[in-house]
């Protein structure tokens, strides 16, 4: 990092703040305000339809009490169940994305050429192509007569109706496909910074592939690994795209947090209840973010 102690010689504080003013305005309006509003509304019974739309009432912690009603919260379509489903979804996606991304980055470490370009392009396209178009190709991919089953049939495997028989596995598969590029690019950039001489030394010492990875590469990419883990966790926690595949069903089996919140707020129009869920989600996210910052600080201290 460049030194910071002589900053003010180039920009006066006044010009700097002027340049920052639009940034602060956007952050205030579109990040801070929604945050404060969601917290405030979570204590009311505000709705979009019905009497509470015209005249919302302060109801204290009732919304939260209802979320954590332990008699019913594990039923299908309820908050607790959604939380559990989200945890499954996040952990499975996380393992899939980070390992696959790391695997691809390692496989093509210090390689160049057509093969690498092709794989990187495919994986990256999966990440950047628009979700609405992707939803269609995946609906066809997972169709009982779709590409996946055709491929499975060709090698003699069963042909399930994916979205009905294994909806959670389907959206995890989808999300891993969609998100691996981030880990792959991150790790391959990190591995690119490893000096070849380290690896040559390891070769000279007769290290095998696993030792080479564990003793030379892994320490070099530890920071990126932490970054990938936490950012992927946060993003996956809030991802809404599976809605386009399953609408949260069948029978609420893919009712992950973002879909659950959307349903409460924009299908039942229960803004108060939806905001209460959002507050809980934010708290969870902040804890995760705290872990991230903590890990980062420790990583920097260690260097």
């Amino acid at each position: 990092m460049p030194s910071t102690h002589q900053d003010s010689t180039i920009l006066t504080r006044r010009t700097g703040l002027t340049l920052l003013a639009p940034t602060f305005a956007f952050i205030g309006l579109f990040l801070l305000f929604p945050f404060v509003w969601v917290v405030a509304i979570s204590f009311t019974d505000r709705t979009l339809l019905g009497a509470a739309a015209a005249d919302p009432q302060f109801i204290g912690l009732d919304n939260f009490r209802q979320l954590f009603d332990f008699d019913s919260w594990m039923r299908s379509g309820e908050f607790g169940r959604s939380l559990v489903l989200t945890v499954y979804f996040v952990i499975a996606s996380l393992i899939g994305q980070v390992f696959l991304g790391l695997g691809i980055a390692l496989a093509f470490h210090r390689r160049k050429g057509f093969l690498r370009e092709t794989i990187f392009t495919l994986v990256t396209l999966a990440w950047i192509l628009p979700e609405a178009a992707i939803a269609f190709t995946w609906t066809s991919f997972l169709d009982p007569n779709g590409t996946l089953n055709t491929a499975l049939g060709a090698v003699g495997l069963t042909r399930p109706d994916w979205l009905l028989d294994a909806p959670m596995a389907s959206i995890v598969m989808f999300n891993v496909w969609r998100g691996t590029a981030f880990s792959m690019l991150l790790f391959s950039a990190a591995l690119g910074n490893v000096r070849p001489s380290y690896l040559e030394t390891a070769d000279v010492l007769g290290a095998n592939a696993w030792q080479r990875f564990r003793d030379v590469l892994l320490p070099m990419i530890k920071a990126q690994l932490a970054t990938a883990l936490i950012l992927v966790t946060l993003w996956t926690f809030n991802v809404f795209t599976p809605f386009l595949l399953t609408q949260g069903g069948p029978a609420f089996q893919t009712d992950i947090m973002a879909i659950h919140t959307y349903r409460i707020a924009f299908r039942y129009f229960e803004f108060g209840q939806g905001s209460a869920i959002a507050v809980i989600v934010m708290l969870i996210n902040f804890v995760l973010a705290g872990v991230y910052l903590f890990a980062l600080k420790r990583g920097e201290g260690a260097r």
Partner: protein
Amino acid sequence: MNARMAKWFGALAVLSFAAAPVFAQGSLSVICRCVEGGVNAEMVQWLKDDVFPAFEAHKAEQGETVTLELVEFGGSDEALQQQYALDLSVGTGPDVLAFDGFWTPDFVEAGYIQPLDQVAGDVVWAWDGWDHISEGLRELIGFQGEVYGLGTGTDVRMIFYRKDLLEEAGLEVPWQPESWEELLADARQVRDALDIAPLQLNAGTAMGEATTMQGWFMALLGTGVHMYDFDEGVWIGEHPGILQALELYDTVYNEEGLGDERMQLVSQGRDQSFGSFRDGETAMLVEGDWFWRSVMAPGSEWEPAAGRDEVVGWAKMPAVEPGAGYAGHDFVSISGGTGFALNPNTADGELAWELLSFMFSYDMQMAYQEIQPRIRIRDDVPVTGDPEMSRMAEELLAVSTVRPQLPAYARISEAAQRMTERVVSGEMSPQEAMEAYADTLESIVGADNVVRAD
């Protein structure tokens, strides 16, 4: 200014004139869940070919130019309701809204729609059409005695069956089961003879209100109870009838494989059930008369290859046993009503009402009847051209009942859908599902407004 810019400014000028109703000009937009060549195509045809040209000509005679626009909404009923809620909450939206009657209370309480005479003035009551619309039917799009729109018509529900399949399985056609026991016995016979899951009774949240109307109510009413106790003014959360109706679902989908529960769960399930009936994979499908007059209409995508009139028959839905149905009936049905409401944010309420009442004039309703014969709300407009539709109206309106027109209904209906889903998917037993339903009811309307078993 170059030529292209001139064109844009020209277009802008035209637009701004169109927006301001001066010089005896006006413009109105109508929205419906209807798509040319798709869902409710008959409504598009009626509006675009009959109503719009006639109304424009009618206004032209009075020296006024009116431009009419139809917004064809392609999403689901639920998506349309969502669109209205967002539109009206911020004071926009088309002038005339296709509207489902049961949405009314929620929209009224939120202050989003207003009675016709408040939108358009007292001129509303001067309309001669009122003489032909009975008091009861005026409330199709009404709440607490106020009228917010006009209903296109009402409907009834029944079991549609495939004559060819039933005959093949050795059943007599015309077919009419007299009790649930008979219904199940006949379904078993078809299942065993043809190796199909013959019966579909809608369940689950994916089908939305179609589950409540074509599924849950048809089962529940057969046990003699309703969702709501109209005398006491309370919702019925737990009741032996609810349990019995849930057990019917359990029998059909889980215990005996008489129905295909997969169609009840996936997001395009209702279309799949239409396709399955068309293709002869389903022999008995509980649906509304909409299924007959629109979905399977001759020439449409879902008409069975051998022709609707040749292979499709219908039977009344029996109560558990004769006399055990709601209000002591032998058979049951439930009626809803869709229609059109006025958007209170319209720039010209009087003109909007003029169009609405024009749509419901005798001539226009007769024109609609030619495109799609059904039960209309005007008593001077008979069901013409389709004897089956006439027979449905005759035999079922008498035993039919309606949904509680109350603000909480939409949420409670969703809770009922979820209850059926929990049983059909095997998540809960009927008893557990009913208890969970009662819990949800209490959280929506409060424990004081829910009856539970002791």
